């Protein structure tokens, strides 16, 4: 849709008389002709509306899918769901092109070539399940069940697979969180038992009114939002942050600050864009906290930064403050300046002293405010833990935590789900292992490769990026009951994940999966790939199982609202091709293992118990919402404060409950799939704020947050009397029981135990903050960062409607001419989509690009579209075309996460551009695994750029 006046002008003579002609009626025919009216009525037809969720994306918005003749005809947001309030993004609305994509996996396959060659034969489900069952049985007998890893990739629908493999006897079940942003979540986990801190801008919220009624509240209260390395407009996860951010701006005069080296779409809408050097998020937060502590003046309304009432609801601030301040006396070897001072932070971040001061004052003095840090800041850096901890502290001391319009820990406010269906209890089963000739007994859970392994025993979200090492060298259990036990990893079951491309450096993954032992057999004996999509990891698999797509299987939304909400992700259509649902795959595999003599697998735990996926989902719902009756206004004033709440909103409202005063549980009628279906698919429980305090007293309620003391904890391992508290307590106890043996991760940063309060260490591959890398700055003048744009993930790269979009500087229409089969919408006939071969002109379709500053580009005589090579000090390189703009900090380069170099034909159009699109992960240092939880330093790298 471009302006073109060429032909328009030809008719302009006629147009002069347009107003006159209008009067003749020629321009305004009064009614639709009967045939037109009929055609329109038919076009709307009769649809069946299914309430579901968009698991094509982690935001999992509530959707209405309108079905006609068993096919998805329309997709809209579900108006009853507050996450998205009836809206749906480009991804959500494009679902037909994924579900009806010609590139989907259609039937089970078994490898016939070498791993990576991509040669497979089609087999039946029975053959595939038999093959997997026999291999798993053999491996369990030979090496123990713990030699099997179940990596669920996507969080959604992991429960069936977890259940099966926990019952099988391995604790090594993981999901996407392990390669998402664990350092970012760390502060919330340590300090409130939570995970994601998000601004209180989900509107509407269901709020209890003084008269006892419930009302949808649309009022924005937030006055300031600071997004650091968080780009909700493009990298969606917390969906309401899109309409909420602009809504708060326009309707409440809220100011928005975005801190990001690149002008993200969110930054483009911000009132202030600050672009620091990469990997200096903690530096900035540290300087903000120091500024606030040093300049707070309780008598000056303009400088009353701190709300000291937080001390009533927390423990350990004095220790935290003392540890933080102890750094002020030290001089940083990189610049000789005092830690966390404005000058120090200016030197390291590249922002000006004035900018940091302005931001600190703005955040301290504006209330309510929310400071948010995202996966593209602390999440992707070796030392992200420090930033995450400081972020929590900043929000708490300024009085913004869980206040109306402030910041909310959405992990500990969302509804619980899963319960016993996930099968966690199987990990309590006792097993025996021979260690050093002695028989030792422990629990299945004690065999966990990370939690009791030699490297990252606090990796409660697992360390998937360390798997290549585990495939090569096996696992050393150094802590707990099985200390001294060594086991190999022999089977890797990967479901809806693509770790070969995304789990740190692809070259390392490929090497580990194809490594052979002395007799020429693959060290990793079995690699199973389960997905709807045909991704790169499938090329390396021994067996491929096609799973039903998100619209073809049922489960529950996995979402982060600001109060308890849960919705049914209904199966909208029947599985296409030969695809099967997770519950069915779980049951088939369980039955096979049982037939092969595995006594740990019983029909009563699987196929006899779960006849349908609905049975499974109902069990998952039996614990919902599972949150506590806390906060102001009290969600349920008719029930005791501080008690846990379970059951449908309807039964709780009507008083159809039993109250267990001993366990402090209020139980209504359990939420079921049937109940959800008859309530627009969704259950919503009331919002409240200040959930850490009693409703009618200025004291803690001791029910929330979910820490060892039920207070906000600024210290993480301490003793009171003979009791020990804190989130690191159990991990330090492991070290103590192992005679003080220091895990590998901690050793790297010179710690001998998990710290008891505030700590600081430097990130890697950053020449501006870490002296060890200073020498590289001249030859590698660019910092390399990454981040996803939601049009360019694996699933979305397969969707042509999203290829017609450009997003920021990393997804631009810079394609060479190509031809590909694509799903095309059909306006006539019964099929909503048909696969057609189509030719795409040059520069008409978006591909992964390399985003850099335009002045940097000019200095190198580069212009938009030039092909360049990006090279790191490890000798690794990648190729791509550049997009140069003023929207990038000089000296920084950004490449989309897994947005280029895609080498599976299953990606469709994206595969065609693999030769000239960049693979960011090929430049990641696979040995940079952050010391606490073993998370890859996705954005800790420096590079140089050359014209190709």
């Amino acid at each position, binding site marked *: 849709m471009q302006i073109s006046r060429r032909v328009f002008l030809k008719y302009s003579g006629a147009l002069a008389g347009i107003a006159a002609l209008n009067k003749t009626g020629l321009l305004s025919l009064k009614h639709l002709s009967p045939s037109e009216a009929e055609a329109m009525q038919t076009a709307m037809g009769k649809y069946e509306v299914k309430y579901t969720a968009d698991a094509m994306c982690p935001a999992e918005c509530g959707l209405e899918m309108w079905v006609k003749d068993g096919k998805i005809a329309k997709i809209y947001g579900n108006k009853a769901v507050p996450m998205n309030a009836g809206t749906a993004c480009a991804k959500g609305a494009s679902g037909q092109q994924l579900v009806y994509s010609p590139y989907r996996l259609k039937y089970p396959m078994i490898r016939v070539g070498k791993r990576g060659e991509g040669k497979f034969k089609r087999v039946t489900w029975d053959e595939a399940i038999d093959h997997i069952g026999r291999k798993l049985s053999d491996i369990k007998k030979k090496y123990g069940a713990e030699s099997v890893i179940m990596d669920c990739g996507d969080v959604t629908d992991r429960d069936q697979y977890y259940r099966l493999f926990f019952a099988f006897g391995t604790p090594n079940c993981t999901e996407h969180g392990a390669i998402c942003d664990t350092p970012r979540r760390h502060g919330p986990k340590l300090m409130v038992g939570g995970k994601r801190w998000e601004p209180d801008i989900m509107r509407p919220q269901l709020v209890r009114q003084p008269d006892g009624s419930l009302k949808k509240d649309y009022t924005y209260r937030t006055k300031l939002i600071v997004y650091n390395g968080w780009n909700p407009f493009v990298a969606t996860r917390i969906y309401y942050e899109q309409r909420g951010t602009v809504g708060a701006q326009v309707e409440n005069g809220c100011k928005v600050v975005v801190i990001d080296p690149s002008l993200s779409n969110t930054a483009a809408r911000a009132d202030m864009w600050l672009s620091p050097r990469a990997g200096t998020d903690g530096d900035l937060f540290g300087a903000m906290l120091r500024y606030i502590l040093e300049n707070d003046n309780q008598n000056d309304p303009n400088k009353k930064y701190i709300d000291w009432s937080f001390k009533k609801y927390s423990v350990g601030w004095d220790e935290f403050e003392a540890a933080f301040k102890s750094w002020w006396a030290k001089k940083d070897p990189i610049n000789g300046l005092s830690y966390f001072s404005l000058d120090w932070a200016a030197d390291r971040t590249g922002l000006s002293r004035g900018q940091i001061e302005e931001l600190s004052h703005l955040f301290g003095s504006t209330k309510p405010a929310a400071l948010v840090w995202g996966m593209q800041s602390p999440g992707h850096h070796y030392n992200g833990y420090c930033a995450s901890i400081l972020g929590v502290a900043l929000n708490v001391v300024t009085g913004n935590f869980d206040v109306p319009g402030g910041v909310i820990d959405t992990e500990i406010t969302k509804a619980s789900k899963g319960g016993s269906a996930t099968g966690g209890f199987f990990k309590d089963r006792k097993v025996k292992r021979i260690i050093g000739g002695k028989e030792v007994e422990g629990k299945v859970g004690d065999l966990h490769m990370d939690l009791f392994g030699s490297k990252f025993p606090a990796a409660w979200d697992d360390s998937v990026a360390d798997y290549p090492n585990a495939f090569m060298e096996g696992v050393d259990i150094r802590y707990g009951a099985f200390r001294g036990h060594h086991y190999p990893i022999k089977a890797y079951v990967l479901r809806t994940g693509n770790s070969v491309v995304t789990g740190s450096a692809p070259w390392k993954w490929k090497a580990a999966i194809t490594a052979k032992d002395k007799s020429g057999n693959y060290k990793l004996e079995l690699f199973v790939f389960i997905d709807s999509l045909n991704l790169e990891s499938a090329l390396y698999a021994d067996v491929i199982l096609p799973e039903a797509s998100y619209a073809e299987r049922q489960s529950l939304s996995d979402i982060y609202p600001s109060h308890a909400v849960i919705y049914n992700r209904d199966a909208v259509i029947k599985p296409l091709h030969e695809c099967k649902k997770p519950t069915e795959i779980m049951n088939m595999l369980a039955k096979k293992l049982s037939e092969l003599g595995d006594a740990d697998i019983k029909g009563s735990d699987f196929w006899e118990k779960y006849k349908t996926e609905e049975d499974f989902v109902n069990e998952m719902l039996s614990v919902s919402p599972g949150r506590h009756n806390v906060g102001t206004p009290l969600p349920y004033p008719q029930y005791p404060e501080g008690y846990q709440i379970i059951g449908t909103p309807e039964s709780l409202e009507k008083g159809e409950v039993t109250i267990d005063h001993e366990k402090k549980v209020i139980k209504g009628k359990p939420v079921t799939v049937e109940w959800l279906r008859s309530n627009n698919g969704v259950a919503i429980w009331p919002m409240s704020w200040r959930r850490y305090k009693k409703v009618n007293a200025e004291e803690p309620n001791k029910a929330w947050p979910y820490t060892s003391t039920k207070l906000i904890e600024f210290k993480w391992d301490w003793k009171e009397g003979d009791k020990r508290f804190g989130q690191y307590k159990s991990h330090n106890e492991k070290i103590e029981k192992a005679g003080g043996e220091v895990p590998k991760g901690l050793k790297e940063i010179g710690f001998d135990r998990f710290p008891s309060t505030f700590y600081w260490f430097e990130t890697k591959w950053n020449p501006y903050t870490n002296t060890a890398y200073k020498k590289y700055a001249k030859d590698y003048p660019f910092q390399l960062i990454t981040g996803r744009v939601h049009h360019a993930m694996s699933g979305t790269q397969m969707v042509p409607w999203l290829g017609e979009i450009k997003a920021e500087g990393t997804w631009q229409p810079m394609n060479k001419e190509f031809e590909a089969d694509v799903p095309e*919408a059909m306006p006539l006939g019964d099929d909503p989509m048909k696969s057609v071969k189509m030719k795409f002109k040059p520069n008409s379709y978006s591909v992964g690009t390399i985003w850099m500053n335009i002045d940097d580009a000019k200095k190198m005589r580069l212009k938009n579209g030039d092909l360049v090579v990006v090279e790191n000090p490890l000798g690794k390189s990648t190729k791509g075309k550049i997009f140069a703009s003023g929207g990038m900090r000089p000296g920084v380069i950004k490449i989309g996460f897994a947005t280029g170099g895609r080498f599976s034909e299953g990606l469709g159009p994206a595969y065609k551009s693999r030769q000239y699109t960049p693979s960011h992960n090929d430049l990641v240092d696979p040995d940079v695994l952050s010391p606490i939880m073993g998370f890859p330093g996705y954005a800790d790298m420096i590079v140089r750029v050359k014209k190709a």
Partner: protein
Amino acid sequence: MSKKYALLVDLRKCIGCTSCQVSCKMENSVPIGHFRARVDFADTGDYPKAKRHFFPKLCNNCEEPPCVLPCPVPGATYKGEDGVVMVNRELCIGCGRCVGACPYGARFMHPHIPVKNDPAKFAKDVPEVKGKKAKDLRVVDKCDYCSHRLAQGIEEPACVRNCVGIARIFGDLNDPNSEVSKLKASVKTLDWHPEYGTKPKTPYIAPDKEALDAADGKLNG
């Protein structure tokens, strides 16, 4: 009084997500490479004063539509009583004159919808279709505010229904109490190229006027 539908775009709330563009394609089976609704992007300015504009485009459903007069088949394209500029697929012979006549590029020939009307009847005056059969010609398509939804009483085009930032407001300008009328009355709005004299009915709330200029810049390829 009859209705006068309009679609207002509030650029203060547009987050550049392109939901409108894709929701429209989903709703109306718009083919790859063509658009009834589209979002333009423009990166302008030098670091650190750089900007990115999002500019959603759609048919203006002009009060004085320049696309109607060039049509050689009476009623094949017309302005309905409710102000929506329509294409009658039964009558359109696919000559393409209206496509060129729209200065906003809002019309296209739909590759998957063949012409039904017999072009031979018009071949004398319309050389564009001379010697061609209906099945070889394609009808014109454009945004009609999801007229099939309007016909069902759903006064909410799909792009408005799904708009993520709640930046698209649809309604009746003849109703002073409609949200679109109230917004138009209370906040300053701009038209896209009003100088063409077509009286567009897509008012933009544009705090930064540069967005409208940038929409036609060469960065938007």
